[in-house]
Each structure stands twice: as structure tokens, then as C-alpha cells.
């Protein structure tokens, strides 16, 4: 039988607020256990939650970015269950009236196909703490630093039909939340987590199959593998005459498999009800409009503009708009250097990115900022230096504080574009290589590269390569 895969994702994006969603504690990652947990986070008797305004603003920005409905009257509800890292015995979340309603996300697949994925909703909630098992003998530690960290849970419709589509959608959300700067997207630190609801059904069948929910996936690669494993598992069950049970399964990256965590029967009755400690959130149109006016140009719009205005290829435009800082960097370089978009793009995606990758540095922390980098691209653009020398200069800029012109002057690296000077060097090289000249003239064209290399060497790499090529060919023919 032919099976169709049906996937919906629940993404938890940790909002990049400085303080927690209902308390003033810091949300900074990596602090000593329980140093960022105050009386509210600890669920001490008598303490009360106060909603973080910034978290609400961020959720609204997400709605604006996905053209989703905004829940102008949204309500926090308590999700009740017992767990040691859940200090109050309930999680404050949203149930029937979330802050973000239905929306649409446009996803571009690898083959260029455009896919629309429906958003069911997105709601605000607090994160739980962490249970720590490793460091204790015969006991479990509880670290409540993460308790109360704001999350936006983004729920999609079951619109994806393959692991690849699911990953493309997840990447799109990942890029979007970073673009509008509501989440740092760090998957290792758990700032961006994906749960996948996976089911299969015979091709052509309308009715959805029984789904399982896969948790604990902390990279896009694992998401793809976990879904593929799960699809195979479900096919095996159904083709073996069995039935898929509705359950929560954990992905185990070490063994590349999913394992049952709890079945529907074992699931909690969360006894949701509106949290009486928090008033319903009323969102005024003025707030929405002021947030809208502060929204950055979204990646899709920007990518189209880069293609239309700068004549970048689809691919290059995609790379330059993958995140907002790259796009800003690119536009700064383009603006300040006066170079073509193609030149700026190739220097950013090539030389800049490879150095950042090598050093494991984010663009924001790049040793060469957009202004200094513009200087370099400008000098390549105006032929002051060649690309090859540009790379050496970039290494020096990377290591120090000098700008491009200072390095060019200090090291005498200005490109030689004076025809007579280049001609003189060519004459000297030809005179010194009579045998090679004869071979060339007898038809061994490949020797052109040899002559180019010799002249370049004589110029210590400074000869304008275009001019050199043209002049050399003329002289060799003569």
C-alpha cells in the first residue's frame, strides 16, 4: 500500500525577554543552579504572577510576521499537574483564548516548490525548571533557573507531508523568530524546541491516522531523522496488521529511534481553568499599530527586493536574507562600498562567512564590522587591490584594527594598473624564458598560465590581473 505521511509541529520558542514572564528574575542561560529563581519562581506561598509586557509585545510581533489573527482578548489558564520541577503544581499557559490565532506560513522547499503551512495558534506560557539526575546519588536535583522563562508555543496545522517539509517549515519559523528578534533560536540551549505530531494514512484517504507525538528533538537534522524513523515504525505496524496507539514518544538521538514515553491512557487530565491571579489581556489597536510600524522588513519581502533591485540570484538573495543581521550587513556593505551586489554578496558569503565559521563566531561579534568590510570591498571594486590580495588584507583586518587603506599603504599593496609598468615586467619575463616562449608559440597554450604566474610573482601579486592577461596575450603572439 502507498502511505501518506501527515505531520504537524508544535514549536516552543523561548522569547528573548530579559526577565521571566511572570517575575523579575533574569532569563540569562547558564547561571549557577537556582541563582535566577526568586520567590515567585519558587512558587512560595502567597506570591503572585505579574505578566511581562515585553513577552506580550513579542507574541504580537509574531502574529504580525505570520499575518495571523491577534487574540485581542486572551486569557491565561492553569495547566495542573504535579512534577518536582513545576513549583506551583501548575503551569501558567493559555488554552481556549490564545494571544495568536490562525495564520499562514509560506515555506520554500528544496526543489523550489512553495508550500503554505497553516498556523493553528500560538500561545504564551511559562517554562518549567529542570530536574538534574546526573550529579546526585540516589536523589534528583531541581534547578529552577528556567522556571518561568517565557515561551511562545507555535502550533501548526497537520499540513506537512514529509520530514523534509517539516524541517523546511521549522527552519522557516526559526528564521522568522530570529528575524523579528523575539527568540535567539539557540537549539542547543533549548531556546527553540520542536515536537512533531506524526501519523500516516493510505494515499487518498481523507481521515487522519492515529498520531504519535515526538518530543526531545533538538536539531533540524534530528527532527528529520526522528520523523522518518517514526513513519517507518508506523508503516511496519500497520502493514503487520497492528494498530498505532496514540502516545508521546521520545527521540533518542544516540540510537536514532523513538521510544514510548506515555500513552493516551496515562496522560494527565490537566484540569485547565482561567488563572484567577491574572486578568484577561486586552490588546488595543494602538499597541498593534505601534508594533507594526516598528516591524523590520520580513525575510520574504526583503529577499524579493534583493532579487528585483540588486539582481541577486534566488540563491544568493536567500543566503543574504537568511537572518536579519546578515541582510543588514549586506545592505551596509552595498551602500558604503559602491560595489555591485554580486561582488558584495560573494565576499560576504565566501570570505566573511568562512572566517566566522572557522572561528565559531556569530556575525554580530565579527572582528570586522560592516563598515570596515565595506572599505575592503570598495578597494576591490575600484581595482586598488586584486581579489587575491583582498583575502590577505582581510586576514590582517581580522587580526588587528587597521582598516583596508592603512594596510594597503603600509604594505605597498596597491594594485599596478599602469600599462607601461606591466608591459615592462612582461618583457622581462619573456626575455628570461625563451624556451617556454618557443613552446607557447608552437601551440602549447597552457603555458599562458605559467607566464601569468611569473609576471604576477614579479609584481608581488599587485599586477591588475585583467590588464596583465590582456597585455601578456598580445605580447606572446607578437
Amino acid at each position, binding site marked *: 500500500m502507498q502511505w501518506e505521511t501527515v505531520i504537524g509541529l508544535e514549536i516552543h520558542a523561548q522569547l528573548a525577554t530579559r526577565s521571566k514572564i511572570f517575575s523579575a528574575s533574569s532569563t540569562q542561560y547558564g547561571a549557577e543552579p537556582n541563582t535566577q529563581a526568586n520567590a515567585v519562581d519558587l*512558587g512560595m506561598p*502567597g*506570591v503572585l504572577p505579574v505578566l511581562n509586557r515585553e513577552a506580550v509585545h513579542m507574541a504580537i510581533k509574531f502574529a504580525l510576521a505570520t499575518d495571523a489573527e491577534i487574540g485581542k482578548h486572551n486569557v491565561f489558564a492553569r495547566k495542573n499537574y*504535579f512534577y*518536582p520541577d513545576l513549583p506551583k503544581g*501548575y503551569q501558567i499557559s493559555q488554552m481556549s483564548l490564545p494571544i495568536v490565532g490562525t495564520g499562514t506560513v509560506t515555506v520554500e522547499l528544496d526543489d523550489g516548490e512553495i508550500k503554505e503551512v497553516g498556523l493553528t495558534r500560538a500561545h504564551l506560557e511559562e517554562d518549567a525548571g529542570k530536574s538534574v539526575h546526573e550529579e546526585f546519588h540516589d536523589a534528583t536535583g531541581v534547578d529552577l533557573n528556567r522556571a518561568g522563562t517565557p515561551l511562545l508555543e507555535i502550533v501548526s496545522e497537520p499540513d506537512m507531508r514529509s520530514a523534509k517539509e517539516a524541517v523546511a517549515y521549522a527552519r522557516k519559523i526559526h528564521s522568522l523568530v530570529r528575524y523579528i528578534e523575539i527568540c535567539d533560536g539557540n537549539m542547543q540551549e533549548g531556546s527553540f524546541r520542536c515536537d512533531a505530531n506524526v501519523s500516516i494514512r493510505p494515499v487518498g484517504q481523507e481521515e487522519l491516522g492515529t498520531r504519535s507525538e515526538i518530543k526531545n528533538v533538538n536539531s533540524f537534522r534530528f527532527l528529520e531523522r526522528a520523523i522518518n524513523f517514526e513513519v517507518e515504525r508506523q508503516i511496519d505496524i500497520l502493514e503487520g496488521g497492528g494498530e498505532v496507539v496514540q502516545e508521546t514518544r521520545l527521540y533518542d538521538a544516540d540510537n536514532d529511534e523513538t521510544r514510548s514515553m506515555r500513552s493516551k491512557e496515562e496522560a494527565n487530565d490537566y*484540569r485547565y481553568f482561567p488563572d484567577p491571579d491574572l486578568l484577561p489581556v486586552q490588546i488595543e489597536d494602538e499597541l498593534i499599530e505601534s508594533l507594526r510600524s516598528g516591524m523590520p522588513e520580513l525575510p520574504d519581502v526583503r529577499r524579493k527586493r534583493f532579487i528585483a533591485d540588486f539582481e541577486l540570484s534566488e540563491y544568493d538573495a536567500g543566503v543574504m536574507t537568511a537572518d536579519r543581521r546578515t541582510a543588514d550587513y549586506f545592505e551596509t556593505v552595498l551602500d558604503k562600498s559602491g560595489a555591485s551586489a554580486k561582488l558584495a554578496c560573494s565576499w560576504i558569503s565566501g570570505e566573511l562567512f568562512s572566517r566566522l565559521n572557522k572561528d565559531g563566531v556569530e556575525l554580530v561579534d565579527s572582528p570586522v564590522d560592516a563598515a570596515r568590510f565595506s572599505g575592503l570591498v570598495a578597494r576591490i571594486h575600484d581595482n586598488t587591490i586584486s581579489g587575491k590580495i583582498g583575502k590577505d588584507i582581510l586576514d590582517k583586518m581580522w587580526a588587528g584594527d587597521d582598516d583596508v587603506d592603512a594596510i594597503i599603504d603600509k604594505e605597498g599593496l596597491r594594485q599596478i594598473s599602469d600599462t607601461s609598468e606591466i608591459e615592462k615586467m612582461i618583457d622581462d619575463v619573456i626575455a628570461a624564458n625563451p624556451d617556454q616562449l618557443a613552446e607557447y608559440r608552437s601551440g602549447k597554450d597552457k603555458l599562458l598560465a605559467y607566464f601569468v604566474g611569473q609576471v604576477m610573482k614579479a609584481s608581488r601579486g599587485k599586477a591588475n590581473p585583467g590588464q596583465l592577461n590582456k597585455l601578456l596575450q598580445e605580447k606572446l603572439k607578437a
Partner: protein
Amino acid sequence: MHKLTLAAMQRSLESGEFSSVELCQYLIERTKQHNETLNAFISITEEQALAKAKAADEKRSAGGTLGSLHGLPIAHKDIFCTAGVRTSCGSKMLESFVPPYNATVVEKLDSAGAISLGKTNMDEFAMGSSNENSFFGVVRNPWDTERVPGGSSGGSAAAVGGRLVPACTGTDTGGSIRQPAAFCGITGIKPTYGRVSRYGMIAFASSLDQGGPLAASAEDCAMLLNEMAGFDPRDSTSIDRDSEDYTATLNQPIKGMKIGLPKQYFEAGLDDSIAALLQQAIKELEHLGAEFVDIELRNQHLAVPAYYIVAPAECSSNLARFDGVRYGHRCEDPKDLEDLYKRSRAEGFGREVKRRILVGTYALSAGYYDAFYVKAQKIRSLISQDFSQAFADVDFILGPTTPSPAFKVGEKTSDPVAMYLNDIYTIPANLAGLPGISVPCGDVGGLPVGMQLVGNYFDEARLLNVAHQYQTVTDWHTRIPG
């Protein structure tokens, strides 16, 4: 000295008739002596109180501006968190819990110069109408120690009624200030929901809980409420409104004020002698110029059932944090996590608390939520609507605070519903979030009886004004048990 009202004590402190140290010392000795019988206090903080009294006397003699309650003794219901002082909420669960922070109410009264002599007894987690549900034992009514003081602020009411302290803080979720005030012959006001911060006040039912004062007179209540009320950014349900001086309007004439008498408050179930006392009180108020009209509160009969869904539902969630993990009672040698939860909670909570957690958990469960919780919330809106319609025509609503005077210890402990019906007249104000005050209006066989006045939202000043005017022409509030 103990017979003085808070206002009178203040005048004596100002005139130098006695010092704060003398006053506090005297009341602490008196409290220690009577607490053996009344059990009104869970903790007496003698050392801290006397140190603060000494500092208060020094500050007074040094001159300068003093807080409005400077050097005056009070006590806090043991539901308000007090930094460094055990806050038990009447429960074994918090028998050894010492909060690292003060409730906003405690902080405010502190900074006004009030001196807390200790923490008063209460029904466990404020669940009860008789103060028989305290882990720290039954509180006795100072008028008849065979009888209950009411609850849940029974310790506060008994302490003021017995004149151990002139004023106490309390909390009222379904009548827990007004009912014990009525039983103990004192005055107690439950402010509008949102008027007094709930921060640091251990939650029973968050949408109903409201802190307020219990004192001998309306004037003393006004003095305390002046400091307790006010917006608190740490409580999202606290209302951002200008503060008022409740003492400033106490002496305004009440001529022309219209008071509604709900038919439903005077029907079957009300003790005849209480009905008769209310008729007398109505006459007194008429002499003062108030006008009375009959009104209807049609959904009154639904208030108790609705309350006993909403309050337990919220409590089942609010009390989930007492799990033995971070603070509070933890069972010995738990064998696993489930055992830790089960035994810590089974051992830490008393019967009534467990009953309400179970009822509330049931009411919120899948399949029952709509039939119980949602329906109860709808009834709640109907009850609020009844009140708003009534307040379109009248300034206040008058009725009994309780259906009967204080009952005997043990009389209703085996019948929870009979116990719950004790709050039949007080619960509607909590469901609607309205302010209500109980004022002593007579006695039945030596037991005090309370009259309740309910006002419109934020009408505390006028409620206290009417109560004070009534107290200028009556002396029930000045009577002290023999």
C-alpha cells in the same frame, strides 16, 4: 487599658498617658494569660514587638513625622507572610514555614508604625466557618468559651473580641472576616475585591480572597484600612485607584441614604431573634435619616452552591504547590516521588482542606468542567447582575451577617453542609467582589449578633460612614465579654 479602642489608644500615646512599650507589654501579658483559654494566637512575637515598641517610643520623643498607626499594637492573621516569623496558615503543612518576605499588607502596616504582637489562629488555609479546622487547635469565643468564634479569621476575631489586641488583619473569601466579627461582637470589613493587595497573603480562592481589618469599631477599621488599601504592582488583580482617607468621612450625616432590604435575606432560615434585632437597627438608622426600600436578590439561593464549586476549584490548584518538594511538611523516608507527594499531602493537610481539594479537583476534571465550573461562573455573573440592578436604586443593602449567633464547638463538625450554610449571607458579596461590613447590633442570650451592610464597588468610605454613624447612637460595639 485593653478596653480602649485603637483610636483612644492613639490619643493616649500622643498625650503621653502611657508609652507604646507599656501598652504592648500590658497586652502581651494579657494575651499570654487569656490565650490558654481562647487559643486566639498561634505565635506571640514578644521580643520583636517590644523592641519595635521601644523604637517607636524613642522616635516619638525625638519628634518628627510619625506614621498614622505609630506605636499601636495589632496582630496579623497567620495567613499573611511575615519575614522571619513563622507563617503557618493554620496548617501542619506550614508548621515550620518561615517566609523570607513580607506580605504587602504587613509591609504597609509596618511602615505606618503599627506593631504586630503576633500571628492569630485560623481555620487551616482559611477553610472553615468555626475555627475548628486549625492544626493549632480550636479557638474559643470570648463571650462563651463553649462556642466557636466563627471562621476562618476566628483567632483575629477572638483576639479583638476578648480585647487582647485592639485590631487585627483578616481575610474574607466567603465571609471569613464578617462572620467571626459578628460572632465575637466586633466590627469587620471586607473591602472591594482588588482594594487590598493579595501579595504575600496565602491563597485559598484567588478570585474571592480579600484582606481587611477586624476591630472594635468602624472608626478603628477605617484607621487600619487607610493603610492596608492601595494599588500594588505585585498583585495583578489589585486596582490602580487613588487612595482615600476613610476616617475623613466618618462623621458625615447619612440623611437621605437609601438602604435596600432584600426579601431573600429575611426569609426562612434566619433566627427570629436576629430578625428582631435587625428591625431595631433599621429603626436606629431611620432615626439617623436613612430610608429603607424592599429589594430582590433573586439568585441569592444559588450563591452557596456556586461558591462551593468556585472556591474549591481554585483551592485545588492553589494548594498544589504544597507538595513536600521545596518547603513545608515532607513525609519521612519517601520511597519514590509518588510516595513523597501522597504521604506529604495526606499528612500535611487536615480533613476539610482535603475535602475541598477533592471537590475542586472533581469540578475541574475533564467531562465535569462545563457542568460545574463553567456553570458556577455563570451563576456568579447572575449574582453580580442582581447586585448592580439593586445598586441602581439603593446605596446599601442591609441584612444579617449570619443566620444564627455563635454555635457550640463540635455542633456542626459532622455536617459540612450545615457548616457551609453559615455563610449564606456573606458569600454573595465575595462572588460579586463587593465590599461588606459586619457591625454588632445586639445580643441573643449573651451572644453577639452582627448586621451586615453591603455597598457598591469602592464604596468602603460610605460603608464605614454609615457603620460609624450607627455606632454613635448604639453601644453594642463597646460591650466587652465579662
